[in-house]
């Protein structure tokens, strides 16, 4: 057993910490406070981070990326999230889909899409799966019924596919330049056998972005509607095989490419960053805030809360790094999913304990504390809901 980091891992961690301290933290609360969901995003921070490699670090060196390992990616996500969880996610969302491009796209597609992605500091990626009527049904589709699940339809006309339908809550939709889109290509069979994945550039004719969702947490991070009205996508943009999307993204049975597999690690590592922020903030507050002439930390009830916060955070760190280490060694296990489920419990309890220590002085809640708690609630529907837990349980059983 050796828990030490390599020099390269350490230097990425330090670079991320510096960027987080100097560039992200100073804008975090002001971006969070912007009322209009469309205006929380700023390209400035994306460009700055991109120049340091934080947008493209999961892209192979061959295509101009940094090709960092999973441990490095986990370390960087945590450091960025410690300053702002939503901004960390805005960067790592690109890693998630560049993993998918690397694993699932043909050389010709990589040439067409990875190269411009690497070259342009404002090129961000997204993937559209969820629809207004299909959330859990996409994640855990019934195996015997063709009706449930996504309805976005793709029909082939010669060398083109015509897409019609709608996606909802799609991350990066309002800002992305390229999207993976899952569409029904065979409505007569259960979901897993009848969907095809397409690469859809944002300037595709017949494709547009609708509403931008106004979330209570992760304010910086943009989620939007994607609307397809006879959108025309060339056949050359089909990822993998027709009706073969699930095999590429793993579905319920386990991951084969890195997209889904990375996503579990991503949520855990990001949560860890929030926990680190909450722990350090709690410790600082406990030492500096005074009550009755003594530091708050002098009180047993405060010590016990801080103890629990650190205990859970360090346990999560061990789990996150173990998962990243297993990914780097291509060890297949259900640990990534379990770590993701666990991170939901930990990030919510740790931030709520911090809020407890701060208290609402008179009726005022510190905006930073409030933000951490709001951000942590995002995990409920992404990482800790019963469907995601049961999905992971299936991996244990299978």
């Amino acid at each position, binding site marked *: 057993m050796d828990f030490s980091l390599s020099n390269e891992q350490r230097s990425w961690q330090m670079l991320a910490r510096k960027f987080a301290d100097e560039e992200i933290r100073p804008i975090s609360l002001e971006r969070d*406070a912007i*009322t209009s*969901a469309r205006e929380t995003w700023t390209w400035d921070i994306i460009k700055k981070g991109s120049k340091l490699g934080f947008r493209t670090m999961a892209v192979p060196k061959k295509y101009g990326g940094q090709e960092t390992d999973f441990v490095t990616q986990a370390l960087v996500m945590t450091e960025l999230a410690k300053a702002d969880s939503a901004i960390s996610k805005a960067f790592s969302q690109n890693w998630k889909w560049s993993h998918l491009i690397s694993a699932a796209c043909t050389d010709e597609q990589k040439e067409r899409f990875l190269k411009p992605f690497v070259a342009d500091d404002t090129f961000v990626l997204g993937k559209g799966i*969820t629809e207004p009527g*299909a*959330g*859990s*049904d996409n994640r*855990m589709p*019934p195996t015997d*019924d063709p*009706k*449930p699940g996504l309805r976005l339809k793709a029909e082939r006309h010669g060398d083109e596919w015509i897409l019609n339908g709608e996606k*909802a*809550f799609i991350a990066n939709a309002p800002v992305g330049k390229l999207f993976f889109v899952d569409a029904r290509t065979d409505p007569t069979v259960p979901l897993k056998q009848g969907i095809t994945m397409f690469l859809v550039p944002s300037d595709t004719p017949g494709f547009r972005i609708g509403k931008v*969702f*106004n*979330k*209570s*947490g992760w304010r910086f991070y943009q*989620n939007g509607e994607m609307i397809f009205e006879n959108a025309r996508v060339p056949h050359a943009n089909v990822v993998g095989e027709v009706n073969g999307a699930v095999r590429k993204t793993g579905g319920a049975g386990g991951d084969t490419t890195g997209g889904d597999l990375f996503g579990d690690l991503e949520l855990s590592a990001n949560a860890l960053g929030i926990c680190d922020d909450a722990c350090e903030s709690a410790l600082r507050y406990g030492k500096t*805030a*005074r*009550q*009755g*002439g*003594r530091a*708050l930390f*002098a*009180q047993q*009830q405060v010590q016990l809360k801080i103890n629990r916060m650190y205990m859970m955070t360090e346990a999560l760190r061990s789990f996150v790094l173990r998962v990243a280490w297993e990914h780097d060694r291509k060890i297949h296990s259900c640990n990534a999913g379990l770590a993701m489920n666990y991170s939901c419990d930990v990030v*919510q309890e740790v931030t*709520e304990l911090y*809020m*407890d220590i701060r*208290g*609402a*002085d*008179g*009726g*005022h*809640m510190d905006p930073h504390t*409030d933000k951490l*708690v709001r951000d942590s*609630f*995002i995990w*409920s*529907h992404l990482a*800790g*809901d*019963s*469907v995601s837990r*049961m999905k992971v349980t299936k991996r244990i059983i299978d």
Partner: protein
Amino acid sequence: MYNLHLSTEQLEIRDTIRDFVAREIKPVALKAERLEICDRRLPMRVIYQASQMGLRTLALSEDRGGAGADHLTCCIVTEELAAGDADIAAVLSTTSWLGHLLFDHAMNDAQRERFLPKFVGDDRFHLAFANYEAQTGTQLGVNYHRPAPADVALETSAIKAASGEWIINGVKDYVANAPIAALFAVVVKIPGQAVPKVLLVPADAPGITIRAHEKPWPHGCGGTVTFKDCQVPVGNLLGDNAAALLACVDVPGHGTPLFQALNLGIGRAAYEAALDFARLRVQGGRPLIEHQAIGTKLAEIAIRLEVARASIWQAAWASDHPEAIADGSLPDLPLQAVAQVFTSEMMVKATKDAAEIFGALGVMRDMPLQKYIHDARVCQHSGNGNTDAKLRLAEVIAGFRRPAHAPMVRASN
């Protein structure tokens, strides 16, 4: 006798309020601008309508022009209102309860004569209790199970001018109802006196400045009230017991669990929304509610609501029947504090679980679920919070007695 049968009147008023909430409050409460936590305006028209129904003067005794509702009825009404909109419930409950405490208990006849007709006659007349000061915490903190410090840490002072009037100087913050209140009960320190006193200060008194909080975190509406050589007549001083009487508004103890009932109403709103959604939304080939995972979650929420309501009603009933504590039927514990800790912790869980059932919709600001969670967190952290409530309960269990009115420690430095 142990009896959970509500009276005909209680059932009638509950159903009337439920109907009012469905017709008048919900349509307003579910508009996008009411769901925006940081930028919500009070629907004053609905609050006015509620006053005309008698809800602003609900707890005021009947012979003084109110509805004379007992503690339990007030809790039932507050729960119903909060199931519609926590802000509306907070404003009305604050005025109604202060109205009862001030006019039925704290004022003398001369004071009542001056203020009661205006209070009863004007549907826009609201009340506020100005107690909190930024530098003066009432948390036990380091003084748990230790005697209170001798000096009273209040900064707001009143001195008697040569003309005979009280001159008030100081700043009170986070005063609930401040922007809409016509009359304030202000806790002050009178030099040379150990126990804090309470002065009645009209909103138009010379030397008073009221600033509404923008983007308030808590419920209702709040503000900062500044007194600069503010003058009120000598007759505005309430009796010696007033500060202790009103302290229960801020610190849960043996008082009426009104704000716990408000908290319960928030949980119920989330529960009802989740139940409707779980019946309608089909995933996995059947309505959500038919899935074990969701059914169990709804059952857990229902359990939390029912047990919380039982603890709230017990505390309310105990306030209505002090003899039940005297004869040992009920424990001599701060039952309001018991209800506060249990309800506030359980309602945070309940609102989060309800929101989770909605998936991504649960975090959207144009949907009410995220607001219910916020509202439940406000209840969890209102006043001195649950840590303080537990320490106070522990002191009672240990048999440690302290005067109710004494501010404990300075909050910072």
